[in-house]
């Protein structure tokens, strides 16, 4: 078959993917290339860019505020991904067993995920306020109220709780779908072999969920590293940088018209995430 005939055969396919390909090039590839160039320049969007090599990267990496933002982001990821998926899996296991009202609970759990993060953050900001319901409940037990979002020790965990609440419905639905796709005869066979509830979970459920767990963690970790909206609404990065995250640092630079520094932060984050995602997938691959 000549090249021309092969192309003619595939032309319909090329035609169909052309719009998506064009959109990807225009809205993703070109901005990525432009951003890469900016990261090597001093550029404010108005005056001509001045090439500075890797200076922006060196400045960002040695900047104490970026380092603090990086630490906070890591803490956010560890707390959020340590608790969120576990909660999602737990609620999915409960829903998998509950035959009645499963649809109702599934919808209820998924509702926060469908709600705008800004709305969720605003609601939780009220809950955490001095006169909010959380302090009111604490007060019933005679305990003093806590300045949840104004205290450097509680601000980040408070934002993490909000994020977990907003996101665990998604994890629940994903895990529930995966649980229901595990063939029931596996469990029957395990029962015949005398497996108890824990053994079935350990040797049937968990292996069956492995691709889903990998998916949830890869997506969740990438999302956690990009945390911004709830920080902006609830704490604006404070108090005293306690909730400043990498993306918050990026936007801060952008607002100062430091487009070179902001682009360098974006690429540092991308490289870090790419390496992390690769390692996650390799670990998943080895276990498969």
């Amino acid at each position, binding site marked *: 078959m000549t090249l021309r005939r092969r192309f003619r055969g595939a032309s319909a396919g090329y035609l169909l993917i052309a719009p998506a390909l064009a959109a990807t090039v225009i809205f993703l590839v*070109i901005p990525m290339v432009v*951003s890469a160039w900016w990261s090597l320049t001093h550029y404010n969007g108005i*005056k001509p860019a001045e090439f500075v090599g890797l200076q922006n990267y060196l400045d960002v990496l040695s900047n104490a505020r970026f380092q603090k933002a990086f630490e906070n982001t890591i803490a956010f990821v560890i707390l959020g991904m340590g608790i969120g998926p576990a909660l999602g899996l737990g609620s999915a296991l409960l829903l998998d067993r509950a035959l009645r009202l499963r649809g109702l609970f599934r919808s209820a759990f998924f509702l926060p995920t469908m709600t705008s993060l800004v709305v969720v953050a605003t609601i939780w900001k009220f809950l955490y306020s001095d006169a909010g319901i959380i302090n009111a409940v604490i007060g019933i037990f005679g305990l003093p109220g806590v300045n949840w979002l*104004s205290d450097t020790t509680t601000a980040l965990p408070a934002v993490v709780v909000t994020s977990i609440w907003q996101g665990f419905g998604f994890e629940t639905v994903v895990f529930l779908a995966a649980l229901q796709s595990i063939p029931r005869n596996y469990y029957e066979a395990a029962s015949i072999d005398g497996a108890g509830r824990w053994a079935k979970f350990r040797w049937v459920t968990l292996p069956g969920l492995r691709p889903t767990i990998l998916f949830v963690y890869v997506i969740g970790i990438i999302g956690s590293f*990009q945390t911004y909206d709830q920080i902006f609404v609830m704490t604006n990065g404070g108090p005293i940088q306690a909730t400043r995250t990498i993306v918050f640092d990026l936007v801060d630079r952008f*607002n100062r018209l430091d487009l070179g520094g902001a682009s360098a932060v*974006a690429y540092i984050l991308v490289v870090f995430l790419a390496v992390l*995602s690769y390692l996650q997938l390799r670990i998943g691959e080895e276990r498969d």
Partner: protein
Amino acid sequence: MIRARQLAAIAAATAILVGACGGAATSAPSPAASAPATSAQPSAAPSEAASASPAPSIDTTPVTITVWDYYGESTPVKPALAGFQKAYPWITVDYQALDWDSMNTKFTVGVSSGDAPDVATLDMTWIPTLAANGALEDLTAMSGGQLNGKPIADQYTKGALDAMTYGGSFVTMLFDFDTYALYYRADLLEKKGIAVPTTWDELRAAAKKLAESSKGSGKPDRYLYAIRPNTFHFSQFLFEGGGTILNADNTKAAFNSDAGIAGVDIQKAILDDGSGLYWPDANNDLIPAITAEQVAMFADGPYYMGLLRTGVPAQSGKWKVAINPYSKQPGSYLGGTGLGIPVLAKHKDAAWLFIQYMLRPEQQVGVFTYAGAAPATTAALESPELTKADPYFGGQAPFKVFLDSMATSTHFPYVGAWTEIDTFITESLQTALLGKATAKAALDDAASQADAALAK
């Protein structure tokens, strides 16, 4: 198979993140709340065009200018559009309402991507960064120093003229001004026999007497003095103590002087007395705390007159305003809203006509009547509308207090690193007021960071 998935996941992560950064700066922002263009096509209004009688030098080619406004529902800009389009029928205004929180980012995206509006309302605290980056049009060159046919210098106070100037040129026209005074619950002070405080010591004593515990726990939780850990409020204490934010040539931090330390210490003392309510900016405005009677005194700008009227109508007649108590001299920061033209704006001449129209006395009074804020031009300040007795403030004319305050207020330094310095100061205030460090240690740390930023 796993290789393909790996590549897909990594590529997706890369694309999402970098695309978000680069894409943000290469595409136009979509305003949060975009109103349809209020159209007044020139051809549709020949009689109005005739009545406008444009000067021969004015280009009357039909144009559409884009105006970004962050005032919100009580904006004085939108109600003025019909009159503007009657006066200048060849100019159509594409009015876009945005919120203050996101305006700075949207404006930054706009000017850096070449898709800026023609006119924007800009917080005066953003001006140093925008002007230092060359984002704003030189209005001195553009106007020839004239505003509505009179010299600009004759139409503003000296403080306002300083605030509008960067590098020897006007880069914005002040539309409303912001300067701080003391709001206090006159009914409570009278009930408890407390005189309106005029010094820091009196302020502390008054706060102590006002504070009450509603739950019987002994810990005061209502009628408190609001402590705001931000540069706006700190600079007031700093200026009142005779301090400055930077040295005379704007090359070194000076806010960590004795005046600065004393300004933080007095606030910390009020907090330690239990008579202060710590209220960071992330909590937004004070209206919920005022409604809940948590706050009986606070320092803020004239725009709070409007916020109180609309947000806490139940406390009408109970509030009054006084010059803020001071230690050595009265003082406040001077800010507000400026009208600016981005250097990349497409229709600068029409934009300048729009700004001039908005600064006519009749539109300036709208700043007070619609937004409850303080108009900036001297002609508007003389309007009887602004100085009449206000029933909400117990028959007081609170605006006069802000006029007095403006006479002794100072704008923030116009340096390119201002945004960073503002952040360093705010964080040092949080550090000191939350008891994580002494005022001196916190301010010294912020000053060293500010020096480094200024040296760049």
